Structure formats: structure tokens, C-alpha cells
């Protein structure tokens, strides 16, 4: 089946007229994730604006990275009047499955500008090993 994105002209029309929404996972309260794969490690980036780093819990088991946490709602709980309330708050959880097992003790994570970046080195035993060919 052809997807509407395969027609550049239709896509362009959509971009102009349709409400601009970033692609999101179907389930709610799931922050969007990008996964970059390299030969020796995977890098997972997650858009999580306005989360306190201490409210984030990461765990790795075999080939699965779990990200859980919660986001506080805006400070204006005591606000005189709300005009607009679009930002989400509360609990969120994501599980990301990698194509190979990671080394749990070597996983590193940083949180900057509201983006979580997790680097997961690949388990040695799962790496592809190149075999030298001997000629006789």
C-alpha cells in the first residue's frame, strides 16, 4: 500500500493545510524517542521538556531500556485564571528495545535542554566479528 507521504505534492499540501503535529506514539503520555544505531553502541534520545532529573528512572535489562518518571504541572496551581492548558503532566513510561544486548554497567545518560540522551554500549559477545580470509 502506498502511503500519502510517498506523494511529495500531497505531502506538501498536507504540511500547509493540516494541523502541524509532530509524529507521536499512539499511546498517550509517551515521550517521542529516536534511536541511533552504531556498530559498537546505540544512542537513544528522548524529548522530555521540563522534567526534574531526579524524577527520571532508567533501567536496562538485556536489550531493553526502560524510561519512567513524572513531570510536575506548571507552577500556576494557585493561578487566578487559566487561559490555556496544553502541556501534559503526570507519569510517563517508555520501553525501547534494541537489536542487540547492551552492557548495563556501561550505560551512560545525560539530560540537557529537556532532552534525555542514553548511550548503550553493545555487549561484546553480540558483536559481529570479521573473519580474515587466508589465501594459500
Amino acid at each position, binding site marked *: 500500500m502506498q502511503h500519502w507521504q510517498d506523494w511529495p505534492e500531497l505531502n506538501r499540501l498536507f504540511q*500547509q493545510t493540516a494541523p502541524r*503535529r509532530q509524529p507521536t506514539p499512539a499511546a498517550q503520555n509517551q515521550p517521542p524517542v529516536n534511536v541511533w544505531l*552504531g556498530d559498537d553502541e*546505540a544512542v537513544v534520545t528522548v524529548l522530555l*521538556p521540563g522534567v526534574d532529573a531526579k524524577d527520571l528512572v532508567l533501567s536496562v535489562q538485556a536489550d531493553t531500556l526502560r524510561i519512567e518518571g513524572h513531570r510536575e504541572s*506548571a507552577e500556576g496551581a494557585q493561578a*487566578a485564571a487559566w487561559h*490555556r492548558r496544553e502541556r*501534559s503532566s503526570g507519569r510517563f513510561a517508555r520501553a525501547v528495545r534494541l537489536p542487540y544486548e547492551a552492557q548495563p554497567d556501561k550505560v551512560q545518560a545525560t539530560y540537557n535542554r529537556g532532552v534525555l540522551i542514553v548511550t548503550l554500549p553493545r555487549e561484546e559477545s553480540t558483536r559481529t566479528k570479521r573473519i580474515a580470509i587466508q589465501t594459500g
Partner: protein
Amino acid sequence: MSESFAPTAVPTGPAEHVEPSHDRPVLAPPTDIYETEDAIIVVVDMPDVDERSVVVNLENDVLSITGHAVGHAQTGYHLATAEYTPANYRRTFNVVAEIDKDSITAKMKQGVLTICLPKAGEAPPRRIAVQAG
């Protein structure tokens, strides 16, 4: 109620149909606006945006906010899952209250922009008497 973390759709006027010259998506970031006794507070989710790229402008009762996501292109890596693309964020709001323009403050913290628009102390009378003809 939307519980998504991603930017949500907003109704756009004719001016919004100007096409950007770049191929990055231009998105409307989710925004909270509330009013306290002495200010209007605008809170905008703009993850991955460096504060130096943020422009906040209040002119003719229109507050405009723009910012550009930095992006994390990893050379030598292959993008296996892509649920978002680095975007340019843009939103405009009509602010009806009288604002003390010299005291507006904006701060960026962990991808969240908070703008404080202090209300003007002595709002000039705006009501115009209508005379019967």
C-alpha cells in the same frame, strides 16, 4: 485533554500559510497560559532549543515566540527509530491585557520557556463613549 508530550496543533490564520524556506517542520509547541493578580505567565515546551535561538516579541498586542531545536545527528550512526525530527517552533498569541513592556522577563530551563508579562499598573481608560446621533 491532550496528554501528549509532542507539539499539538493550533488553528492557523492565513499568515501561517507562508512556506518556510527550509525543510524543517515548523511546529506549534504546547503552551500553558495563566493569569495571576499582577502578571500573565506563558509556559512553552520547546525541548532541545538553545536559549540563544529563542526570540520573544510583543508588538501590537501580539506575543510571538520562536526557537530552533538543535538536533542530535550522530555521524556514523543509523537512525533506526525516528519519532520526532528537530523542528523550528513558532507560536503567536493575542494578549489583551495592558502589559508593562519594559518589565517582561523570559527564562529557559530544561527545554521549557517561561515568559512573565507583568500587567501595567495604571491601565489607561480605553472605553470610548459612544454618542447617539
